């Protein structure tokens, strides 16, 4: 399986990354890409920009552990995770997850799983620039409960 994990401040090209996974291959039947984008509002307040802080070293390790976990749960043929850090403005890409498999259920479930874990376990923190100053984004309970879906039974949400 082709696995790509990158942390970078520069933007990424979702299409090029997806193409890399499937190019020249005839065993892949499904490619799912998730692109997370910086929005201009969040929970009722405006956001003019945000800065993503991360824990270098641990972030890569933690993402790699979850990609390995996803490979054990689903028959993946490829997975790419790219997470940006630094300052971003509304409309800018933040995170990319690409999964490839023979069948669509595995590709969908693995991408969904990886995003839930990136949200709740990968060591990144968002500092928002708001009309009244800057503020750290608080973790959401809905993200924790989304991630908890995968703990009950491996692959349960894929069925």
């Amino acid at each position, binding site marked *: 399986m082709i696995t790509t994990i990158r942390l970078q401040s520069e933007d990424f090209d979702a299409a090029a990354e997806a193409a890399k996974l499937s190019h020249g291959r005839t065993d892949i039947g499904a490619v799912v890409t998730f692109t997370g984008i910086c929005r201009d509002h969040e929970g009722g307040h405006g956001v003019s920009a945000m800065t993503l802080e991360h824990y270098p070293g641990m972030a890569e*390790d*933690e993402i790699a552990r979850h990609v390995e976990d996803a490979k054990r749960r689903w028959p993946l043929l490829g997975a790419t995770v790219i997470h940006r850090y630094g300052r971003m403005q509304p409309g800018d890409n933040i995170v990319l997850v690409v999964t490839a498999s023979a069948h669509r259920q595995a590709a969908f479930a693995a991408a969904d799983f990886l995003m839930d874990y990136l949200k709740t376990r990968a*060591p990144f*923190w968002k500092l928002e620039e708001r009309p009244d100053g800057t503020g750290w984004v608080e973790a959401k309970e809905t993200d924790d409960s989304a991630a908890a879906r995968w703990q009950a039974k491996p692959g349960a949400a894929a069925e």
Partner: protein
Amino acid sequence: MKLLYFAWVRERVGKAEEEIAPPADVATVADLMTWLAGRGEEYAHAFEKRKVIRAAIDRVHVKPDTAISGAREIAFFPPMTGG
């Protein structure tokens, strides 16, 4: 051992990292937070919402009752908000 702080824990402590040598009776991650909170106002402020703060030892998430002996790098940070 080396301590790392991230996000608002870093802002409150006022530094991103430091070397520390806690006394021998500081055995767990929770003990370490209590000991750090007693090191001054900025630490007391950083560790006042202790139940919210997460920790990693040598780049792996750990729970408050995890032993710190043998740790090279311990990090403290708020709940993650990436993705």
